[in-house]
């Protein structure tokens, strides 16, 4: 069964039959985390780097921002028995339109915000597929912790992260 994660949403699960999926990542970022021992995983699709932009919105919906959404994602997995040191972390998205890196760079900032949070908290990114100008769909299979990224396009190329 598919659990769909919309923009600024997350889903966490320990049900083996679940595949958590988020469609069409542009400059947004999808973060999948998974504890292979208890087989608990979650997927977050956040839109913007920092809740200081709109603190109210960040409180209303923490999944909108990296700084509020990422801690929430980990906490929700902990509540299902996952432990931080066992977590496998995979990241996709953060695309950019063409042109210089100085403008329209929300994708890059989204990625930078995530790296900063992970560095501070000693979290390592296992695999990632970020940047470029691709549109991506991301899947997390709860039974195995496998993560796939599908590049939206005619081939519908699917890579395992």
């Amino acid at each position: 069964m598919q659990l769909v994660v919309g923009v600024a949403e997350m889903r966490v699960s320990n049900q083996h039959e679940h595949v958590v999926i988020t469609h069409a990542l542009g400059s947004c970022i999808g973060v999948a985390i998974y504890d292979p021992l208890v087989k608990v995983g979650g997927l977050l699709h956040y839109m913007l780097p920092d809740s200081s932009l709109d603190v109210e919105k960040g409180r209303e919906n923490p999944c909108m921002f990296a700084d509020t959404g990422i801690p929430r994602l980990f906490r929700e997995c902990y509540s299902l028995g996952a432990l931080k040191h066992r977590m496998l972390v995979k990241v996709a998205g953060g695309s950019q339109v063409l042109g210089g890196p100085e403008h329209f760079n929300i994708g890059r900032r989204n990625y930078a915000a995530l790296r900063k949070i992970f560095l501070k908290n000693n979290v390592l990114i296992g695999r990632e597929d970020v940047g470029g100008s691709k549109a991506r769909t991301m899947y997390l299979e709860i039974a195995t912790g496998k993560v796939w990224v599908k590049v939206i396009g005619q081939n519908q190329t699917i890579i395992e992260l």
Partner: protein
Amino acid sequence: MSLVPQVLRSLKNLPPFPMVAQRTLVLLNKPEVSIQELVEVVKFDPAITANILRISNSAYFGLRREIHSLHQALLLLGTQELLKIIIASGATRLFSAPTPGYFAERQGLWRHSVSCALMVDVLSRELSLPDQATGFTAGLMHDIGKIVLSLFVEQKFHEIMEVVEQQGVSFQAAEKIILGVDHAEMGGEMARIWDFPDRLRLAITYHHLDKPEAYTDDLILLVYLADILCLMFGQDLGSDGLAYTGYPEVLRHFHLRERNLQRILLQFGSAWDEAQILFGLMGQQDGVQRANRG
């Protein structure tokens, strides 16, 4: 070998532009539109009147009282909002064919087009520009060229993508290189055949700012920026992904900094949720499901 003759031949079979939308486009240029004129336009299409009432009463407007008549809708929403609804309702038929060259999902182009129209509205509000139905309409129509070009893009997708990846040019530039014509030019040609108002036609033709003429009208810059922001927002992205050029001079022109763009995306997220009823104009069943999901 150039596909241009083939592409142009396909324009000969272009269906007529939906009549109600056509007649509404003419009203866009008038400073004042009377209720009588609007009634005249929609009276032959009961489905559109039903749509107007449905949309007027949806979260999109968030009115507290229920609207029962076209007259009431006009009083409470104003002419410009009503024109948007009529054009969106009237144009659905145009977008009903799948465009597999660009979107795997049947309604992909419609959803992207509605998103862009909404984004123009959000941008206009942020920039304190008058929120006119013309902007919304230009956003809705900017990619009509994809309706016709899809077939050719589908045939040559790999070659187009190769040019994008190897030469680092936009998807539109690659279309031009491989097919001899791109979706913006194609849309402009369709707008000419359908006798669209000039401003609208030029916004379609130049919405990727690849010609100097693009800079003659803020409407064109607005549609360009809305399109780019929709790609960044990400939902309903096509196979062309984000492979379009970001021009910083447009941000400077509108005095927009990155933080403004972030705020616009935030506002767009809410607008997008509330506008599910517009997405649903294409295939009502699907629309209801999506509206409920949100």
